[in-house]
């Protein structure tokens, strides 16, 4: 039985092959003249020898400019090397671009063609996909429960995969934001580490000071120090003894966006601007150093923190304690606590 069937199948296959071969042979014969004279896909046009020469010249120019780039690169200690390099490379690209432009405009067919927009949708395929998904779910009887289970599993797994990202930083611990290197007795020093002596501080200018024996690159360290005639100062009453000899010190980090308050509006600013002020160059938050660092203009939302000072027997300025408020840009709840002295210092 099975042998017969196999023989029949083989015969059928042979027949199919024969038909296919016949069709192919006949087809070949009939198509032959077409191969010799195929229908043009691109419209024929007139040659344009002048455009060809132009393209050639532009291509040669591009090659020369590129070679020039290599030459300029090879010379060491050439003055204006960067300029020549840019010029050569830019020129090479420009000439190549021009050559391509001429080709596009004059040497190839640039007739406009029409094309149908693709079908907006394929309703049958859409329907089939929907059906496929629907029927595949037939055997589930507790779909909602399973979906909820799946959602839970994927959600939990996703959370598990995200949790290691918390190693990036102290996510929950915001205490370091309150820390500064200042504490009672810490000396004010300049960039070279030299202490600030009260007698050497002049009015009409401002100084940058740092905490002695602490990193200069932490937000809590840098100060602006300004000296006034004591009669000019109008500090809040509880800060009356924070400014020995009329010297006040504020955090140099702006409470708005964390830039250094690097401008002192006296006497360089025009006389129309009232009074001396500390200005942050980033967004021009302006603070009044005679009134406890209050904001008088610009976007800062709270005063510059003031550092209480005293003068030690050698005449050097020292901190009387920590700042009047947290240093640097604000965050949720920033005013709640006073700054603390960092553990490292």
């Amino acid at each position, binding site marked *: 039985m099975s042998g017969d069937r196999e023989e029949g199948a083989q015969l059928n296959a042979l027949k199919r092959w024969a038909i296919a071969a016949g069709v192919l042979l006949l087809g070949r014969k009939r198509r032959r003249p077409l191969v010799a004279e195929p229908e043009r896909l691109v419209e024929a046009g007139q040659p344009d020898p002048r455009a060809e020469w132009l393209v050639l010249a532009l291509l040669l120019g591009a090659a020369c400019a590129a070679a020039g780039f290599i030459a300029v690169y090879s010379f060491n200690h050439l003055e204006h090397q*960067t300029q020549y*390099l*840019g*010029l050569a*490379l*830019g*020129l090479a*690209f*420009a000439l*190549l*671009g021009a*050559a*391509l*432009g001429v080709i*596009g405009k004059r040497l*190839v*067919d*640039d*007739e*406009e*063609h*029409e*094309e149908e927009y*693709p079908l907006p949708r394929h309703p049958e395929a859409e329907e089939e996909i929907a059906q496929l998904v629907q029927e595949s779910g037939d055997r589930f009887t507790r779909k909602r429960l399973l979906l909820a289970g799946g959602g839970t599993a994927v959600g939990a797994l996703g959370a598990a995969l995200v949790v290691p*990202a*918390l190693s*990036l*930083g102290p*996510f929950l611990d*915001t205490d370091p*934001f309150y820390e500064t290197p200042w504490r009672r007795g810490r000396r004010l020093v300049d960039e070279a580490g030299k202490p600030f002596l009260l007698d050497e501080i002049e009015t009409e200018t401002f100084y*940058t000071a740092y905490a002695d024996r602490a990193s200069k690159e*932490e*937000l809590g*360290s*840098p100060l602006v120090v300004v000296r006034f005639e004591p009669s000019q100062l109008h500090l809040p009453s509880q800060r009356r003894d924070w400014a020995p000899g009329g010297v006040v010190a504020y955090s140099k980090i702006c409470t708005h*966006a*964390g*830039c*250094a*308050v690097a*401008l002192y509006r006296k006497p360089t600013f025009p006389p129309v601007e009232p009074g001396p002020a500390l200005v*942050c*160059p*980033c*967004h*021009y938050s302006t603070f009044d150093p005679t009134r406890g660092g209050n904001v008088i*203009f610009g*976007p*800062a*939302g*709270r005063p510059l923190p003031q550092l209480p000072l005293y003068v030690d027997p050698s005449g050097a300025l020292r901190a009387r304690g920590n700042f009047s408020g947290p240093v*640097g*840009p*604000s*965050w*949720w*709840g920033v*005013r*709640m606590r006073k700054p603390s002295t960092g553990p490292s210092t």
Partner: protein
Amino acid sequence: MGRAHAQAEHGAVDVIRGVVRFVDERSGTAPFLKKALRYVFPDNWSFLLGEVALYSFVILVGTGIYLTLFFEPSTASTYYTGTYAPLHGHEMSVAYRSAVDLSFKVRAGLLMRQTHHWAADVFIAAIVLHMLRIFFTGAFRKPRDLTYYIGVTMLLLALLEGYLGYSLVDDLLSGMGLAIGYSVAMSIPFFGANLAALIWGGPFPGKPEFWSRMFVAHVFLLPVLIGTLLALHLFLVAARHHTQFRESRRTTEKTVVGIPAFPGYAPRSLALFCSVAAVLFLLGGLVQINPIWLWGPYHISQGTNGAQPDWYLGWLIGALRLVPNFDVTIGNYTLIPNPFWGGALFPLIVFAILYLTPSLERRFTGEYGFHHLLDRPRDAAWRTALGAALFAWVFVIFLAGASDRVFVSFGVSYQAQIWVYRVLVFALPVAALVVTRRWCLALQESDRIHRRRELAEAEARGELPQAE
């Protein structure tokens, strides 16, 4: 034409056949390639803006790879001893030193660095102009809304990518920019401080690892993300074909008219690539940008007046400048610090409007259909007017970002400028809305008059008006 010439031509054709066959046998893509070569590009200058962005991205990747071969993303402290005398003996980070070295020591390094920087500025400018074209011609409508969302996302990523790029160098402007970025992160309600602690690894200027994080984001994560979205964007454009203006009777909602990719469009597009490359390398070689050796290394206690970031951050600087001085507090408890308004909420609103535009327009016009034909801006007076208002709003805030420069360069009072801008921020969008809408309606009216006159003239000549 000699016999040898003809034979050579035949040889070339055989080579082409061979290559096509090789590809087809291994990928089966000949039918697809044939279609792709005849894909038609409608011809309009404004359609090139997206291509300019694409080609700037190519230049960015190329020059960027070159820069990574020399740049060291390390905050380790070092003292400069290189060829630029004014910086001798200055304390600086290894990152900054390597950026200075690759500008002065590495041959062609400065060309690549400046070209990279220019390319970033051009890239984002091209994206923005492209987006304006898409917006004002209604090209974001179905079936291209998804393409549009991806484009807006790429703009967002490109802004972040550019910001990270100039932050990495660790010059004075980098540091000031990072301090501002940190403050904006800190100002986010409820979890801002936690977020900043995560990103920076602690209070500003953060742990040394922060530099590795910025570096990997700038040279890998964001470029790969932008590249992927770019591929998806282009795929979707091709899948639904280009939009077109109603230019003749042939351009309809059913039929797209344009130049086939090959042979007509390919040389033009390659010429555009070469032109973009030419302009960027000429700028990179001849026009100085971000001379980091003049800014000097960053230290948190230093700042400089009149400092300006790259142009694409101007709108955020402006917003930060214009907000009056208040934090939202309950008693002595700070809820929302000031930088949140300008640095976070403002861009959030702008991007939310951009993302919501397609669905809002569908909602208000009740227009849910397919659109392949573009509107001229005048055709959709409300959309154009609202778009002009949005643009005016962002643009005036962008200008406010430069008010310190205007003060430093021209001596115009800073405070007076800020007050003028604070008024303009509200007044200008309204004015833009009203004027643009009137303008559009007037143009529509003039179109109608023009058409009527043509009809009347045709009738007078005894010609029958042609059926539309």
